[in-house]
């Protein structure tokens, strides 16, 4: 077994343990857990049997299995970036809504307070 295979398998095992820990803490949904476990199991399989990627490469018409794995990894990274950017945009808008609602509420309170008659001076 080559060193790169050991690194890949160890990293996949670590990643799967993190997925399970997050699931136990209630931070991940079952569907996401299944998807991530499937992904990391595929990484372990490819790490142990690199020739399995050749099957996919032949089917896709890419020369080498390793190239196929790289292309797919790149696609996945771009997709995750897209998801992250979208999520950040959503959070940004939500934060603006909260800040705006708070600012407008304070404005109305200030205007209300300005209209209240002053209390009579204490004797």
């Amino acid at each position: 077994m080559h060193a790169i295979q050991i690194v890949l398998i160890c990293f996949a095992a670590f990643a799967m343990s993190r997925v399970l820990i997050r699931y136990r803490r209630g931070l991940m949904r079952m569907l996401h857990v299944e998807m991530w476990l499937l992904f990391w199991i595929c990484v372990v399989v490819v790490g142990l049997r690199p020739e399995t990627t050749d099957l996919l490469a032949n089917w896709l018409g890419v020369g080498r299995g390793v190239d196929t794995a790289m292309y797919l990894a790149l696609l996945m990274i771009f997709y995750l970036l897209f998801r992250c950017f979208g999520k950040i945009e959503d959070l940004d808008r939500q934060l603006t809504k909260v800040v705006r609602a708070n600012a407008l509420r304070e404005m109305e309170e200030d205007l209300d307070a300005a209209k209240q008659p002053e209390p009579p001076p204490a004797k």
Partner: protein
Amino acid sequence: MTRKQMAGADAGLDESHAHRGQVDAGSHAQRQRTPAGFQSVELGGPGRNDEPARGPTGACGTGRFHDTGKYCLSGGAGIVPTFTSFRAMGPKIVVIPAYNEELTIAEVVSGAVKIADRVLVVDDGSRDRTAALAKQAGALVIRHAVNRGVGAALGTGIEAAVRLGADAVVTMDADGQHRAEDAAKIFARLAQGDVDFVIGSRMKKGEDSGHMPAHRVLFNTVGNVLTFLLFGVWVTDSQCGLRGLSRKAASTIELRTNGMESLSEFIKEKKDKHWRFTEVPIKAIYTDYSMSKGQNFFVGVKVAIRLVWRRFFG
């Protein structure tokens, strides 16, 4: 007090403004154009405070109540003479988004209070004395707890103006780049009642249009082209912050972006909501300070990415 009651005369406006707010009786007033430059303005039904519309003494200076309970600006005929632009208006409100603008905000507000009924400064999380100086100069200050960007501040200011019963809203930059007289021109253009959205254009030649630095011309041209490609509307100055909105436009605008890209998003809103639109030539004042506050290459790239995102992914 309800938010609705906040609007118009009860919202802390002075008596003359309160009068206008009541006379206007919301945007539901029926307005009819008549020949020979006369305009019939018939105002009836509940006002903003859910009370019958009336002047401060039961009858406005030139108008009176009719038997129907409706109030008319003019005498019995319901006709008021006008030159070309008279229109019953509620408060005119200037909105100024500001972030760390203590060097210029007082002067900008001082100019704006002369041409508007109320000036709203949206302090976008400034860490300096922007809010205090704006208040001292006569503005109503709305504070964002954290910095959210010029688009978010504009959205807050416009929503506040609508709540205060504004019939016309003009937005200005806080860095001193815009002249109060140009804002007054935009108010006057909105008062004609035939447009919902006005952009002050630094590129459009007018009697007092000024000279824009070459790199700003380049940025603006790129902004104009990008705005056109993404939203299908050509304007000569898509990045100018001096803009006017009618009550209709101000109460329907939905800005989803937070930064400089919101300036182009206004134009998307114009197209989506079928606002009647025009451009008014203005003269911008370029100082070292205002130049340092403007767009640079990296801001431009960021704005472009966010605009593309806004166009295709909402």
